């Protein structure tokens, strides 16, 4: 494999991993606060639809992004209301959100645009354009570093850079701020937080809403940067892969980056080589597609370190009388 091919595969990895990374970080906030969220998929789908719809009507990708975030926030609020305020089962609420988004997006899209549950194709300013970083053209001639900088690091859309920036930001927020300490505490031992006089409900809502914002950006990235419009079920299970990545990362931001990049790389390699030949063994493409799930099961089974979820995860908080 030469450098150019390697760079193309890595470039594809970055594009495929970005929605996973954003959704994984979104899940990280929510689950660290003790709210399990299998509704990542639904939130991304809702955001993908509304961002594409608004971008198509207004011609502005930024308004689209805002609308996408709003759609995901709405879904997050439903999840919060069901699982925090009404103390419902978080898994069922998450499943409901996935179904709601899958049905609602197509119905509304059909009603608004009459294109069979699709939004019109986005043109020009209604999509995120690739941005060229400073000096990319000048440095291109430099051996090895030039092509890496020009082809791999430069030339992505804004949400990609945002997603990568969110990794250290998330680490800093969770482990270096008062809010982060409270957020982690509410996921491990909400009683302790309550005793200290901090609202469990408010902290959990904050976490769920942050999750909504990040899912909104992930959905908008799918519909307005990678594609030029929304189509039915376009998230295609990425929310679930992000959840698998979250477990694989053991609920840690830097590990989340590694996990999503690994899963993205596996997808990119599977797309590039229909069957991968490693010496005498041929790995079929289906095995590559299944690998993220297999790895997650291996991690969950405790073969490679143990994945311990936040202790109060999945349980609604009931104050003692």
């Amino acid at each position, binding site marked *: 494999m030469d450098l150019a091919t390697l760079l193309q595969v890595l470039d594809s990895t970055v594009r495929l991993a970005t929605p996973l990374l954003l959704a994984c970080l979104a899940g990280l906030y929510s689950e660290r606060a003790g709210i399990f969220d299998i509704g990542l998929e639904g939130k991304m789908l809702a955001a993908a639809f509304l961002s594409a719809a608004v971008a198509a009507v207004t011609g502005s990708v930024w308004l689209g992004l805002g609308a996408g975030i709003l759609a995901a926030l709405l879904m997050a609020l439903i999840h919060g209301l069901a699982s925090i305020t009404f103390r419902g089962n978080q898994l069922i609420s998450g499943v409901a959100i996935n179904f709601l988004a899958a049905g609602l997006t197509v119905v509304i899209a*059909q009603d608004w645009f009459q*294109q069979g*549950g699709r939004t019109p194709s986005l043109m020009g300013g209604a999509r995120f354009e690739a941005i060229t970083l400073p000096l990319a053209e000048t440095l291109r001639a430099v051996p090895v570093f030039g092509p890496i900088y020009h082809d791999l690091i430069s030339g992505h859309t804004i949400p990609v850079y945002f997603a990568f920036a969110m990794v250290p930001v998330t680490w800093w927020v969770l482990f270096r701020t008062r809010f982060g300490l409270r957020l982690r505490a509410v996921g491990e031992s909400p009683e302790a937080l309550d005793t200290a006089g901090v609202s469990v409900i408010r902290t959990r809502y904050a976490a769920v809403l942050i999750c909504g914002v990040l899912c909104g950006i992930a959905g908008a990235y799918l519909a307005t940067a990678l594609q030029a419009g929304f189509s039915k079920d376009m998230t295609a299970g990425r929310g679930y892969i992000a959840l698998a990545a979250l477990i694989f990362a053991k609920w840690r931001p830097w590990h989340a980056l590694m996990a999503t990049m690994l899963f993205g790389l596996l997808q990119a390699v599977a797309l590039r080589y229909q069957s991968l030949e490693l010496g005498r063994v041929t790995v079929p493409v289906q095995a590559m597609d299944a690998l993220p799930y297999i790895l997650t099961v291996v991690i969950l089974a405790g073969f490679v370190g143990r994945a311990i979820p936040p202790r109060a995860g999945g349980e609604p908080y009931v104050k003692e009388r």
Partner: protein
Amino acid sequence: MTLVKTLTGAVSALALGTIGATAEPALVFDLGGKFDKSFNEAAHNGGQRWANETGEDYREIEMQSEAQREQALRRFAEAGMNPIAMTGFAFGSVLEEVAPDYPDTRFVIIDAVVDQPNVRSVVFSEHEGSYLVGMMAAMASDTGTVGFVGGMDIPLIRKFACGYAQGVKAVNADATVIQNMTGTTPAAWADPVKGSELARAQIGQGADVIYAAAGSTGLGVLQAAADEGILGIGVDSNQNYLHPGHMLTSMLKRVDVAVYDAFTEGADLAPGVQVLGLAENGIDYALDAYNEDLVTEEMIAAVDAAKAQIISGALVVHDYMSDNTCPVQ
């Protein structure tokens, strides 16, 4: 009580109404929906054309899940709809069971063969049309490398791929055809993001014309082709208008003609297997205002010559589904 009476009355009136209007045709769309800009939409257009020309009406339903297939067919048959047309190979096994129960109803299935006395099976010679667009792809390519992106990995899609590869090799024996299938589950028809990445991977390997036969996933392929400034080839319906200037052509599968013919013949249409190919105008390539600048005189001459040869039988394009192998890669 009165409410119940009114309701029962209304229901029986409705039931009588449907039985009364005999020989009203029905159309059943497969998963993917009526407006997929491709296969199902072509069927819809055929039905609409019939309705506009005759001023009559027809019933239709879109499948939402696998479980609805049998129910939909039985409902329509019991309501006296005739003929009942359905799109997609997935109806094959269901129709095999349903058809004997309604011997007086005529069924039309597109893309599959069901051997029953009251069923017309319409299949298309997709390999012939794919051969033609393959020739055009090879002639339009500067790099000598062209791509194919299929949806779900099933024999029908391999038939597209095989015909395409034969067409490419007929023009340029040294050309490379990169073939990718999106997946092995029905989800492979609806993942445009993956379609885009597959197309980019093929472009990275030098492909400058890509043929997409992958439902909505194909829309992602064509989008990536347009974004990267290369040429795409659409499938089933005429998709040239999607990206003017970046669509070399579309392989037309005239599902609309099949539906229109079935509805026109009405309740006494002839059962049996109907193969629609180039000769029957069931398969063709698209040439319109959106791609006329990309298609040269030379291409049209070569493709039309091949078309005439296929129709006369002088040129035989290998059908992948006849023996599940392809002579060229």
